[in-house]
C-alpha cells in the first residue's frame, strides 16, 4: 500500500511557498503532511494531500513543475524509541531510505512517518514481517 506524494519545484524566492499553499487552499485541498528539501538556490516541496490528482492538476495548470511519487506511510509508536525500532529493522535489511518526514498529528498512540525508498514493495513486506503496520491513504483521509 503506497500513498501518492506530490513533489513541487520551488525557486528560492519570496512568496513561492505562500503561492502554492494559497492555490491549494482556494481549491479546498487539505494537506496531511509537508516537507521541504532545499539548497541555497532552490528546493523541493513534498506534499501529502487529501486529493492528490486534483492538487497536481491544479498546480500543473498554474505552471508549476511537479512529479508524483509513491511513498509508504509507516505506523510508529509515539513513545521514546518508537522510530528507532523501525529504522533499525529497515537498516538491518539494508534498505536505503531516500528521505522521510512525519504526518501532522497522531492517533491512538501511533504517529505516522512517510518513507521514500526505491523498492516500496520490499519495505511493506519487511514491515509486515516485523509486525509494524503500514498506514493506508484512507486512514489519512486521502481519496
Amino acid at each position, binding site marked *: 500500500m503506497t500513498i501518492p506524494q506530490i513533489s513541487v519545484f520551488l525557486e528560492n524566492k519570496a512568496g513561492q511557498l505562500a503561492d502554492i499553499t494559497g492555490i491549494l487552499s482556494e481549491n479546498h485541498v487539505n494537506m496531511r503532511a509537508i516537507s521541504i528539501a532545499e539548497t541555497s538556490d532552490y528546493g*523541493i516541496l513534498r506534499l501529502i494531500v487529501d486529493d492528490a490528482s486534483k492538487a497536481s492538476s491544479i498546480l500543473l495548470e498554474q505552471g508549476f513543475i511537479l512529479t508524483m511519487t509513491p511513498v509508504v506511510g509507516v505506523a510508529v509508536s509515539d513513545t521514546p524509541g518508537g522510530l528507532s525500532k523501525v529504522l533499525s529493522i529497515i537498516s538491518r535489511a539494508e534498505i536505503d531510505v531516500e528521505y522521510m518526514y512525519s504526518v501532522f498529528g497522531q492517533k491512538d498512540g501511533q504517529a505516522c512517518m512517510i518513507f521514500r525508498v526505491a523498492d516500496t514493495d520490499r519495505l511493506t513486506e519487511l514491515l509486515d514481517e516485523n509486525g509494524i503496520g503500514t498506514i493506508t491513504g484512507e486512514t489519512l483521509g486521502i481519496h
Partner: protein
Amino acid sequence: MERYYQKEIETADREQILAWQNERLVKQVHHVWDNVPYYRAKMEEKGLTPEDIRSVEDLHKLPFLTKDDLREAYPYGLLAKPLKDCVRIQSTSGTTGRRVVAFYTQHDVDLWEDCCARAIVAAGGTNEDVCHVCYGYGLFTGGPGLNGGSHKVGCLTLPMSSGNTERQLQFMVDLEATILCCTPSYAAYLAESIHERGLRDKIKLKAGIFGAEAWSEEMRQDIQDKLGIKAYDIYGLTETSGPGVAFECSEQTGMHINEDHFIAEIINPDTGEVLPEGSKGELVFTAITKEAFPLLRYRTRDICILSRKKCSCGRTHVKMSKPMGRSDDMLIVKGVNVFPSQIETVLLEQGYPANYQIVVDRINNSDTLEVMVEMSPENFSDNLGYITKMEKELVASLKAMLGIYAKVRLVAPKSIARSEGKAVRVIDKRKI
C-alpha cells in the same frame, strides 16, 4: 521538385553571377561617389576614385562602413537619392545606441520583396499557401519584408505583427496558416503555447521562416519537432534592406546569399584583411543594386563562414553559415569569448528550455558569469540529490563548452520573461 521564385537568377552559373556583380559594382561605386559626399570623402582619404574599381577583384580597396558611420551620418548622410524619389524608411531597434534609418525607393522595395519571395518559395511556398507573418510591422524590417515577399509569391498573407498570442493562435487555426514567419524565440514560444493548449492537431503549418536573431541547430530541431514543420533560417539587416539578404533552401545547411544584389566578403575583424574562402570571420556586404541607401563594404559584425560547395537544391549563390555570434555582442568574461549561442546549445542538449538569461557582473574586480535556467519537467525529481547531480552536469558541460565556470541558477518554469520580439539574453552589469 525544387521550385524557385526567379529560377534564371537563382541557378545562374558562376560566370554569369560574376558578370552581374562586376557590372553592378562599377555602376554602384559611381552612383555613391556622385551622390554620397560622406563616402566620397572616405574614398578620397584612401586616394581612390571610381576608376580604381573595375571589378569585384578591386572591392577590397574600398573603405569599410560601420554602424558608427551610420550613426555619424544620421539621418541623411548616406542617402544617395533625393528624398522625392524615396518612398519608405525602416529603422533598427536602436538598442545599442542611436537608431539607424534606412531609405528605399520603390525600386529598392521591389528588389527587397523579391529577395523575401525567393526565401518563401525556397521554404515551399506557393500561391496556395497561407502565410502568417508575426514579425513586428512598422519600423522593424521583419514584418514589411516578409509581408511584401508573401504578396509577390501570391500567398494569402496574414499581417499579424507581433504580440497577442491568443489572437495569433486563433488566426493560425481558423485560417489554416501553412507558413509561419517570426523570430525563432517567438516560434518556440508559440510552439509551447500550441502544445499547452493541445492545438497541435488543429494547426496546418508546414514550414516556418525564422530570423532576426541567432538560433542554434538544437533550437531548430526543437521547433521542428514541436510544430511538425520544417524551420528555415533567413538573414538580413536593416542596413542592407532587411530580411532576405540570404535564406535557407531545402538542404538546410546554410543560407544562399542573393549575390545578384549583394557581394559578400569575410574579413578578419581585427585587421580588416579579406580572408580566403572557407575562413571564419566577419561578414561584410556591398549592396550593388540599392538606389537610396547603397552601403559599400558594410561590416555586419556577424561572424560566419561562406561556402561555395554545390548545393543539392540547384541554387548557385554562395551560402553563409548561421552567424556563430556577433563580434560586438560577444561577451568577454574573464578574458574569454563567450557567445550566448554556445550556452543555448548546452542547455538544449541537457533537456532544459532554450529560454535562459546570462548575467555578467564584476565583483571584487573579477568577472562573474551566471546563467539563469528554467527547470524542466524532464530534469525534475522528488530527489534533491538527483537535481543537484543534473545541475553539476550542466555546470560541467558549460565549462567544457565555454572554458570558464558559469554559475547555474535554476529558476521556476516560465519565470524568465519571454519576449515577443528579440529576446533579451544577456544582462551585463559590469561598469567598464
